[in-house]
């Protein structure tokens, strides 16, 4: 994949190819690390979130039963690792495996429902389903298709922790005018 500038190896295909994939459910994907304090703190330092739930362990234990992960981190816990010894190449997200004409992507919207808190020590997994691919649309960025996926996040004991619907735009960038 060294000649793939995105690292996402977007497969090229037609709108009909993409439509044929609607309803496809990807194999369950497991997170590579447990929910952990180092990553929680790094994220809170990034966003500058002073919520005491993430910074005071006694407070977190009293109110959540452990150190909670910021809800926005959901996708991070199941991101493929950039590299691992001897293993297979990281499995790209389902949205990056839909055959379409566009050569790049940008995210458009996200709707997440949280059923229970995710705590330190949890190991998450996801199942993704392709639920829609729009006809070709023109936007300010270029011409392309909106790709909708529905994702269910589960804890190691099988409990569903969250359900997410995400829309991204798969497009060919407009020729630069300047």
């Amino acid at each position, binding site marked *: 994949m060294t000649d793939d*500038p*995105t*690292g*996402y190896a977007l497969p090229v295909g037609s709108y009909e190819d993409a439509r044929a994939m609607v309803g496809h459910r990807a194999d369950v994907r497991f997170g590579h690390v447990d929910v952990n304090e180092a*990553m929680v703190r*790094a*994220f809170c*330092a*990034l*966003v*500058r*979130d*002073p*919520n*005491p*739930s993430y*910074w*005071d362990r006694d*407070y977190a234990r009293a*109110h959540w039963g452990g150190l909670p992960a*910021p*809800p*926005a*981190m959901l*996708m*991070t816990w199941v*991101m493929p*690792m*950039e590299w691992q010894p001897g293993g297979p190449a990281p499995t790209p997200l389902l949205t990056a495996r839909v055959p379409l004409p566009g050569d*790049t*992507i*940008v*995210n*458009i*919207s*996200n*709707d*997440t*429902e*949280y059923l229970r*808190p995710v705590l330190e020590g949890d190991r998450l997994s996801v199942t993704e389903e392709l639920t829609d691919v729009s006809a070709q649309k023109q936007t*300010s*960025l*270029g011409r392309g298709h909106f790709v909708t996926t529905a994702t269910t996040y589960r804890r190691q004991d099988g409990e569903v922790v969250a359900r997410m619907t*995400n829309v991204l735009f798969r497009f060919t*960038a*407009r020729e*630069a005018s300047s």
Partner: protein
Amino acid sequence: VTEGLDYSQRFWEDVRDGEQLPAVVDDITYRRVIMNTAATWDYFPGHHDPEYARSQGQPTIYLNTIHLMGFVDRVVTGWAGGRAFVVRRRVSVRRSVYAGDRMVGEGVVTARRREQDRGLVRHLVDVDVVVRNQHGEVCCPASVTVELPARSPGRAP
């Protein structure tokens, strides 16, 4: 109790319809966008490679949706308090937030309601959040439902 942390907590009964949340301002430098990539494990090149971002028709690298969601949550839970549980969050990315931009997040309470859930009463508050850039352009409108602690939790709706 850790120094520098704000432990104040808003209870459901304290919330008023139409209440404005304090605005949150955050300057997004190149360093922050790179931190964004590293902290979220999202190595899509639009978030760390300006040349790639320009090839997409974007002026430079930009924050990912995870960061925007984290900022929206910060606006809401910073006002509500550490015991608020995010039940649902909807975000749209209308314009990207680029390295060099200033984000301003503002929120307003749109509803306060109680819901029965498996025999328990959940005390919910709906908040609309808008994230704008330094030009006043809407980058990320959002709506968030949070569950708050209640002073009289047992009372059925």
